[in-house]
């Protein structure tokens, strides 16, 4: 930048790379996650002169997941920057993960020089083509003067409407071009005008349905968190006395220990929640897409109950379930309006019935039951008692994820971060790094399994270099536990390729990075071990040896 200031003050021209950095600063980006390479070098050069913090991950996929975790913990757009070719293709799983969970993210990829595109030169990959199915939008920048507009649009598209990842592919020559930098305040895209305000008449119909219902239930999804509608939601739920079941993505929208929270629904959910959905006369779906793991037979639910579906994305309405009252718009605004029309519902009896069901079917954990293993469900319930409400939990995918979903107590939105739609193993650790970067004062705990952990364990280096104090809990059963369970139930216990008996010494790996850790094998050591783990803000591993026969539910 120095050389350009020296010669460029008169016409105020800057390079494309500087323009990108400046645009990021205009978008108030304070942290980006990335990994440099040849075609993104001009950007990295310009970044030296910026206040923006760059966190070097150990794999581009880690950078994408970290940006995702950052976005979910902060409520802002996560940013990740990588080079062309393999750098770009390594982010694909991260982009798809963000897309499935509607997480606002901007991914900037370097690209080979414009005049070489299409010639299969070194580290060339058609990344806009490759990511087309799982980006909300993407740009291949053709002219440097478009850069400020494109960055502006990318942040706008990523964060508004139904959020999602937006990719900007920038050829290296474009980064070196000189342009006059102008940053507009507003965005006008004629093909993109998200509808925020719900139809008032429809909202009144929803209110009517709630007032008439005897057995209402709310299914709340990740859209509730994206819309920041928690306050309005709590008012609605408590005023009308409606029981709630969150989807995996909706965990945290209502504290897990709230008396109207039945627990998660679906194939890996709890009895009371599924009982409620299957016996309700009114199912109100808020910011959820009725995925197969949440409702396997949605149209059977729709036969028994009136279905209300409120979502920002019109394409979700009627996609997986037949809806009686659809409302399209932003949940926060819609719930605010809805709250003015409703009073206490007539659901008292139903609520009491569900509370009884919840109590009857709660998992009974006998902490003294096994002496050679740690009971993960018991540990998570103890952990929930020991941490404050600011604590953020991320999970990997598999049994650890469902144990956490059903046994940890998420007390506020954004405190439970998991890969819901995609179910991406290796997500939890980099996501925890992103979350801890966004919320340095919160304790961030990555709940992991021995399988998932090994998919992203190189990111311990990122934690070390950037002093990111993520706590890691590994439930080690020396198995791919959930697949093993599937083979047990569906394939007559013909176990194959689920054995991880040659796992490394995980504590030893932590020690190699200069971190502390310990292994426990017994329930009676849980409290002491958790206390030790939580006592400071440094990275720490608590490895818990778990019975391979321990069931998911």
């Amino acid at each position, binding site marked *: 930048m120095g050389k350009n200031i020296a010669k460029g003050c008169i016409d105020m021209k800057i390079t494309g790379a500087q323009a990108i950095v400046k645009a990021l600063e205009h978008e108030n980006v304070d942290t980006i996650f990335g990994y440099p390479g040849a075609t993104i070098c001009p950007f990295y050069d310009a970044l030296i002169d910026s206040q923006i913090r760059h966190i070097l991950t150990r794999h581009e996929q880690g950078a994408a997941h970290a940006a995702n975790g950052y976005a979910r913990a902060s409520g802002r757009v996560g940013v990740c920057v990588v080079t062309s070719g393999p750098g770009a293709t390594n982010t694909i799983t991260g982009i798809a993960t963000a897309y499935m969970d509607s997480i606002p993210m901007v991914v900037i990829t370097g690209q080979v020089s414009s005049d070489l595109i299409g010639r299969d030169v070194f580290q060339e990959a058609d990344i*806009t*083509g490759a990511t*087309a*199915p799982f980006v*909300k*939008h993407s740009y*291949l920048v053709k002219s440097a003067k478009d850069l400020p507009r494109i960055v502006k649009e990318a942040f706008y*598209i990523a964060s508004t409407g139904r959020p999602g990842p937006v990719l900007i592919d920038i050829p290296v020559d474009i980064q070196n071009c000189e342009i006059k930098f102008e940053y507009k305040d507003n965005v006008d*895209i*004629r*093909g*993109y*005008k998200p509808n925020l305000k719900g139809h008032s008449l429809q909202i009144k119909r929803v209110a009517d349905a709630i007032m008439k219902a005897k057995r209402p239930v709310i299914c709340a999804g990740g859209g509730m968190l994206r819309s920041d509608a928690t306050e309005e939601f709590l008012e609605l739920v408590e005023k009308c006395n409606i029981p709630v079941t969150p989807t995996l993505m909706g965990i945290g929208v209502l504290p897990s220990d709230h008396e109207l929270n039945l627990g998660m629904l679906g194939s890996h959910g709890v009895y009371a929640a599924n009982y409620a959905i299957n016996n309700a006369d009114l199912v109100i779906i808020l910011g959820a897409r009725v995925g197969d793991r949440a409702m396997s037979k949605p149209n059977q639910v729709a036969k028994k109950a009136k279905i209300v579906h409120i979502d920002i*994305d*019109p*394409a979700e309405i*009627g*996609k997986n379930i037949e809806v009686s009252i659809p409302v399209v718009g932003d949940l926060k605004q819609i719930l605010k309006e809805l709250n003015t029309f409703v009073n206490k519902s007539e659901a008292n009896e139903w609520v009491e019935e569900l509370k009884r069901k919840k109590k009857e079917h709660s998992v009974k954990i006998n902490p003294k039951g096994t002496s050679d293993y740690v009971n993960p469900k018991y540990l998570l319930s103890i952990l929930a008692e020991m941490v404050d409400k600011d604590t953020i939990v991320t999970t990997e995918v598999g049994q650890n994820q469902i144990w956490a979903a059903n046994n940890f107590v998420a007390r506020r939105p954004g405190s439970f971060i998991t890969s819901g739609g995609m179910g991406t193993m290796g997500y939890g650790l980099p996501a925890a790094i992103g979350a801890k970067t966004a919320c340095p004062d919160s304790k961030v705990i990555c709940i992991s399994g021995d399988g998932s952990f090994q998919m992203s364990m190189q990111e311990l280096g990122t934690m070390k270099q950037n002093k990111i104090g993520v706590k890691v809990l590994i439930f080690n059963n020396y198995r791919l536990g959930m697949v093993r369970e599937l083979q047990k139930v569906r394939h007559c216990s013909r176990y194959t390729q689920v054995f991880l008996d040659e796992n490394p010494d995980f504590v030893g790996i932590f020690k190699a990075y200069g971190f502390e850790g310990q292994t426990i094998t017994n329930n009676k050591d849980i409290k002491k071990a958790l206390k030790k783990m939580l006592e400071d803000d440094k990275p720490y591993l608590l490895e818990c040896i778990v019975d391979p026969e321990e069931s998911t539910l």
Partner: protein
Amino acid sequence: MGKHTLSVLVENQPGVLSRVAGLFSRRGFNIDSLAVGVTEDPEVSRITIVVDGDEYVVEQVSKQLNKLIDVIKIKQLESFDSVSRELALIKVNADTATRSEIIQVVGIFRANIVDVSKNTLTIEISGGTDKVAALEDMLKQYGIKEIVRTGTIAIERGNKYIKAKNNDKE
């Protein structure tokens, strides 16, 4: 099931067509035909898509297309209220014995002969899918060497028109 015609106004930019086409394969929708060309506004292209499916499919196609940032507007055209055409070029065997007979058939269909050689005739026909199919059927007996056809394009009848300018997506 049935055929539905969608008119889709999109930004006239590279990559848009592949986004639209990719969406069909990804979501498992079946395209019967797709035709694209620039409109009276050089920044806007119009894609005419004929979809095979029930109401659910057509609704999903429209909604998913609407989510693409480059899609400006979508309208479903009803067959009774619109004119639709496709164009085909058909190269058929024609020797001195059959040539005049073929020319008669072409005349009946109000098609044009655009190329002639000692043993072939090339015929240009435009019309609805049925008309093109009917001519094809008539020409089969002479031996069709080659057919090339465009996708269907369609426009509304009367005073109605689809413009990019008024922003609301339908």
